[in-house]
């Protein structure tokens, strides 16, 4: 193997000193030449493991081969066969634990940068106005898809391609779900999300904003109006710590922090109306992707010291490798092996600090990661003026409370069978609403599975 081929074609990025002052994309994307060079590193395995590790089983080998030849349109169409939004998944998939993690090249050299090649194809198609040529045979049956996040998008596309009349209901005033309100623009530029949604409309999906199922539209009504329903309502409700001081000002759920910034564009205040108050010493509780997103947003809002407060160590962080690396480059400080016990405030009701307990790593728990164990008497305090709780989210009870007929698990996830049908005939569900919180690509895959199940269901097979 030539030495050159061992190393990835580097991804050009905004230099750290620039990017910490804006919300523009950090990776600048491969050029056509760079994409070809990176694709040419692929040794075209006979049994491509990357494909088996892909939650939607993209035909990665063929896709990469076409890129290597410079046949971008063909490559794009191959990607689209299994993945309706490669520009998005390429940016947000945890490739290191999927396709790239098992890449044969990765055993002795750098794995092929499959994620960035996928993103390249999506971007290339957008720039060159290349789309799939679809011949949609009309079917009369009507389907409602609730939620316009990754699961809803993929389900709606597949059903529309099959010819069904698809209505996509979104609770917020902007479609895209977590792709819009959750993931910051420096990781997933919003014009890409908007473009993918405009493609949905172009093929005839009816997107209805401000339709809050459970609040101003009831599931029952939808069941009367539609022949089948897919619920892709995600896991958009914050979990709180339930510790003292959580009501203090300057304490946010990561959802609030990110919704203000991503959906409402608080970083552009006062040009945009929604404000955000972010101080100089920010503590982010948790170390997943959402925590990294919140931390990197805080840096961009001008915070001087941003801490990730985590009860394990960097090594156990569930965040994508790229996010972790970007966060560290941007000066985020990892305060490892600490667990919050209470938040401290001043007489005006503003947060002033946090009390933490030192932890050590014990035996592996069910997740396979070492269990953090409290070190008795190790409490200490840290001065902070902003605290963001990024301990994860759960399915929104606004929808679930108003649909008691829908069976849920003890933690509020919607119960489904192997065909992703809920206990209600003709009502299917997938994505974070059933899993509780997984990846975009997982949700996307489940949206596709549900679409296939709905098709079978409507055909009576």
């Amino acid at each position: 193997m030539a030495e050159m081929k061992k190393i990835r074609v580097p991804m050009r990025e905004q230099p750290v000193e620039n990017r910490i002052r804006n919300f523009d994309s950090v990776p600048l994307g491969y050029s056509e030449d760079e994409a070809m060079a990176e694709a040419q590193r692929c040794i075209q395995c006979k049994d491509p493991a990357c494909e088996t590790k892909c939650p939607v089983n993209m035909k990665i080998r063929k896709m990469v081969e076409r890129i290597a030849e410079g046949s971008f349109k063909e490559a794009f169409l191959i990607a689209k066969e299994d993945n309706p939004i490669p520009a998005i998944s390429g940016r947000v998939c945890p490739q290191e634990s999927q396709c790239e993690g098992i890449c044969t090249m990765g055993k002795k050299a750098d794995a092929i940068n499959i994620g960035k090649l996928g993103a390249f194809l999506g971007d290339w198609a957008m720039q060159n106005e290349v789309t799939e040529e679809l011949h949609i045979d009309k079917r009369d049956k009507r389907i409602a898809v609730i939620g316009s996040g990754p699961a809803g998008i993929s389900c709606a596309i597949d059903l529309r391609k099959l010819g069904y009349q698809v209505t996509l209901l979104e609770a917020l005033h902007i479609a895209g779900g977590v792709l819009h309100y959750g993931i910051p623009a420096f990781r997933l530029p919003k014009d890409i999300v908007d473009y993918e949604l405009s493609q949905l409309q172009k093929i005839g999906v009816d997107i209805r904003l401000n339709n809050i199922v459970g609040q101003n539209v009831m599931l029952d009504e939808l069941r009367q109006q539609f022949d089948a329903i897919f619920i892709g309502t995600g896991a958009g409700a914050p979990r709180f710590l339930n510790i003292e001081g959580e009501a203090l000002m300057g304490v946010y759920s990561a959802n609030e922090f990110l919704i203000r910034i991503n959906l409402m564009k608080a970083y552009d205040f006062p040009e945009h109306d929604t404000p955000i108050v972010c101080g100089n010493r920010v503590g982010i509780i948790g170390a997943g992707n959402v925590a990294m997103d919140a931390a990197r947003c805080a840096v961009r809002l001008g915070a001087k010291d941003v801490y990730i407060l985590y009860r394990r160590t960097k090594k156990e962080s569930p965040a994508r490798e790229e996010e972790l690396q970007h966060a560290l480059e941007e000066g985020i400080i990892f305060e490892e092996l600490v667990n919050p016990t209470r938040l401290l405030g001043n007489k005006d009701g503003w947060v002033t600090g946090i009390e933490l307990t030192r932890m050590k790593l014990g035996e592996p728990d069910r997740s396979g990661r070492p269990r953090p164990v409290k070190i008795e008497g190790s409490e200490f305090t840290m001065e902070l003026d902003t605290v963001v709780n990024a301990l994860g989210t759960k399915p929104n009870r606004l929808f679930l409370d108003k649909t008691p007929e829908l069976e849920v698990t003890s933690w509020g996830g919607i119960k489904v069978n192997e065909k992703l049908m809920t206990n209600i005939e003709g009502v299917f569900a997938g994505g974070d609403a059933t899993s509780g919180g997984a990846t975009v690509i997982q949700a996307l895959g489940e949206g596709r599975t549900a679409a296939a199940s709905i098709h079978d269901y409507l055909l009576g097979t």
Partner: protein
Amino acid sequence: MTHRITRKKDLNSMDYLIEVEAPMVAERFQPGNFAVLITVPQGERIPMSIQKAEDGKITMFIKRLGKTSIELDGFEVDDSLDAVIGPMGNPPELKRYGNVVFASDLVCGHAENYALCKALQKIEGNHVISIQTFPSKDDIYPQEELSEAFCDEYYLTTLDGSQGIKGHYTDILKDFLDNGKVDIIFAGGDIPALRDLATLTKPYGVPTIVTVRQIMIDATGMCGSCRVFVDGEMKLTCIDGPMFDAHKLDFEDIINRLAMFKKKESQAMEYYNRKTGAK
């Protein structure tokens, strides 16, 4: 979906009324529901009380208080809002309560007063008492926007005594409570006044249900910004409220947290004034 303004008029020097086309909200509105407005595409999502809903239109009472409400005041009939979303929140049960009071002292509370009195009066067995407090004679809303036509007893108070009874609604309620005249009290408006109301009614054991204002963004249970504490338990104003048992609410927390974005609110106002050349 366009949300055209069909009627707009001043209620007093600070408050105005606006009627907009919002068929989805109007069709499903129940007294106590609120709407979320977005005035312009770069605007914020603001919760707003609804006075009435008819013919696909909703009417709201709004105070010229911050950037958004002042900007919206610049809109005229036939202009359109970017979005009118809802109805949001949980309305109270419309049933026979007996002697039921609705008391209000601020714009949002007055809208709810009107909506709820009108609905409760239609239910047999209810004796509806409406109390509306204004600072002074000049601040009193036009007669047709008051709740007087929809209640069995009506009391108008002004803080300076320039018209109606002198004092705040809490002053009148004390007599009612002493006379054992009240079965349940609903109230909306100024939060510190609602706290005082809770303190007043608690010893009498009269159920007191108040509308809470707290800062909201999505108003669908996603952000947690509008969290309040009811008997120590965290609730969200948007999806669990906006009406709560006043005797169980942590008012200090609500009042505190409402101030979180004060500085930003004045910044937004200054920026808007500079941009529009207003003084």
